[in-house]
């Protein structure tokens, strides 16, 4: 391998939950940072630049709330900037930190953030404001009914049922029960999910992610720094982003620019990451996946887009067969995933962090045996902006 790789040398995550009345927003950011710095065994003097991970300001209730996080990340008089790609923000922030190091300008970069979704009042009211004020807000659109429309189209095209959706929740809750950082850790049955309150057909309460509070941080470094300081690391070998149209109506109807049942731009993003990492046959080469899926149905089209199956829709049957369970062929979301924990600003960072821990062999009870190459994804906007990564031991 070349000596120009970028490695992950430190990871910190909160134990995510509904409320953190004991910690202010900056204190929650600090929690992830302290844990990542301890994991990396570095002093703050070693941090040369900071990338701040924060999605909509309105979730925190402070405009440009990253300004209030400067001290929490030790950013005084250091290079500092914020990324906001909606729900993809966390993985986009790791990507931005990666670009800092890969540019040759920096050896050690910290990326960090936090969210208090559980304390924002009503995230759907805030998320309604992501849409066009004249045409789409009054419908009213929210992220749940937006992806319920995707579910209906996926059902029609590929035969997914409500029971299939429930199986995703059952799997991910079982995984989350093994992960002490996950928010929703109670094991549930298919019957529990089907009997839970209807939110927006076919999505029921247990098909939905929670509103989580918590922080996360990661430390990235150049291969030169890692080798020179004899540090342990895993490597970011593929990075990609892609986006699709903002307009919901352009993803449905007779001639959609990108079919709303699928995740077109997620697939395009994975194409870039795979090409960069030299992954040509993901169904054979990928050992573990953390795919951003805030609603049960969206895990299927994410698996399709990552080409962990041979054709769109095949993920439904494969999931029924247990191929994406811990112990299965390619475990998907062994942490419990976004469906069990969603502190939006850092949710996609947690996907990268969890894959890194897996290929590092440090994932604990939810470790996937023998994982050496993993993939992570993040979805932002109205299922619009997608970031992906390949992480290798």
């Amino acid at each position: 391998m070349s000596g120009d790789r970028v490695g992950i040398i430190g990871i910190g995550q909160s134990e995510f939950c509904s409320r953190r009345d004991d910690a202010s927003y900056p204190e929650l950011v600090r929690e992830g940072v302290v844990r990542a710095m301890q994991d990396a065994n570095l002093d703050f003097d070693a941090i040369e630049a900071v990338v701040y991970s924060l999605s909509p300001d309105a979730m925190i209730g402070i405009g440009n709330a990253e300004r209030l996080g400067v001290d929490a990340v030790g950013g005084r008089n250091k290079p500092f900037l914020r990324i906001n790609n909606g729900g993809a923000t966390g993985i986009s922030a790791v990507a931005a930190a990666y670009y800092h190091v890969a540019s040759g300008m920096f050896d050690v970069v910290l990326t960090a953030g936090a969210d208090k979704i559980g304390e924002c009042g009503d995230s759907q009211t805030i998320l309604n404001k992501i849409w066009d004020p004249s045409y789409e807000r009054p419908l009213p659109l929210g992220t749940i009914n937006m992806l319920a429309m995707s579910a209906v189209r996926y059902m029609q095209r590929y035969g997914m049922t409500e029971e299939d959706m429930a199986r995703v929740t059952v799997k991910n809750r079982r995984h989350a029960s093994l992960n002490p950082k996950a928010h929703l850790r109670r094991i549930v049955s298919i019957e529990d999910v089907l009997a839970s309150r209807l939110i927006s057909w076919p999505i029921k309460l247990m098909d939905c992610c929670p509103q989580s509070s918590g922080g996360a941080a990661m430390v990235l470094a150049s291969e030169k720094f890692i080798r020179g300081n004899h540090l342990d690391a895993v490597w970011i070998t593929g990075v990609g982003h892609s986006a699709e149209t903002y307009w919901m109506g352009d993803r449905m109807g007779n001639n959609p620019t990108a079919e709303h049942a699928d995740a077109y731009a997620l697939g395009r993003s994975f194409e870039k990451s795979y090409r960069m990492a030299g992954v040509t046959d993901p169904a054979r080469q990928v050992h573990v996946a953390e795919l951003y899926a805030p609603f049960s149905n969206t895990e299927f089209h994410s698996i399709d887009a990552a080409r962990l199956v041979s054709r769109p829709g095949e993920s439904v049957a494969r999931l029924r067969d247990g191929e994406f369970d811990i112990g299965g062929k390619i475990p998907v979301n062994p942490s419990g995933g976004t469906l069990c924990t969603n502190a939006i600003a850092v949710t996609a960072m947690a996907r990268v962090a969890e894959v890194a821990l897996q290929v590092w062999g440090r994932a604990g009870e939810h470790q996937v045996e023998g994982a050496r190459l993993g993939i992570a994804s993040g979805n932002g906007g109205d299922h619009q902006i997608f970031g992906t990564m390949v992480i290798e031991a």
Partner: protein
Amino acid sequence: MGMRVQPAVIGCTIRPVIAARDRSLEEMIYDTAQLALADAGITIEDVDGIVVAANDQFDGRSISVMMASGPVGGVDRDIMSTPSASEHAFILGALRVATGQFRTQLVVSWSPTETSSMAEAQRLGTDPYFHRGLPLDELSAHALQASAVERAEPRARAAAEAVAEKNRAHGRAAWPNPPVQTQPGPLRWPIMPTMTTAPVTGSVAMVLAAPDFIAERGLRDVAWLQGMGWATEPSFLGDRDLTSAPALAAAARQAYATAGITDPASAFDLAEVTDATPYAELLAYEALSLCPRVDWQAQATDGSLARGGRLPVNLSGGVLTWNPVFCTGLIRVAEVANQIRGRAGAHQLPNVRRGLAHAGSGFAMQYQAAMVLGREARA
């Protein structure tokens, strides 16, 4: 440390004021992006990646990049956003080219004025418990800094008045009929109406490219990024020494080290400085090592920093002339790039070889950045 691949600016469009109300925000962003691509002589098909920057509160959106993604050509393309500052979009775009993984980047920022109160939108950016009730907006924070500077340096007020007069004169030469505030009394003590101007709607876009792309296309009018630095001040005004700009000094050290500049005062043909107030410009002189504070008054009044002087600062008229609030930082970078490319228009200075851009933003210039741009690839 240096960049693995040296980026250059190959296209710019600066729209410091968009007075016409006949275009939606999406159309305004589309126009801006297309003008920058045309200036570079390329199309969106040549663009590998995009970085945008806007303020959700000014835009009235929860995630501004979403709406902008189509107008800037982001569909089926790699797009990211840096809502912390317009200049941060340039920085991330430059970093991406510097990795060698992207040949081109389109960088776009905009700042509308449709919100019912810019001051209230800015006030939402303060700490909700301690500062929001003051009330504090960006001009108030700039005024607190100006007061601190006046107290520390008694001659600063005369120097600030001279800086404002210089920038107004530059603005009159650069643009037809720039606005002048004439209301009596201070806006926020000690900031007088003649020291700032009212917010306007504006936008800016830049195209960055790698050397192999520039060679392949035979591009000649390019401005090479010789050095780049950026830094932030702490979160709370009370934790800062407002009489100086240490984050800008740190940013300048980073930029100058990369560019190999040891004597900044004599290194540049011109500079563009974010003069949110003339006091901010004075602090930038010191932090950028262009003029020590003991010489502020002398050099602000003797023409040293005006057209024809040793180091013309803000030939565009600066923020004092046009103030599209959120994108003023990126406009400073684009102004210097256009001066080097010979495309600065009425305020073009002949034969610019190297220039310095300072971008600052936030409460009392919390975010600071310095860019060294030059006609030659290496300093």
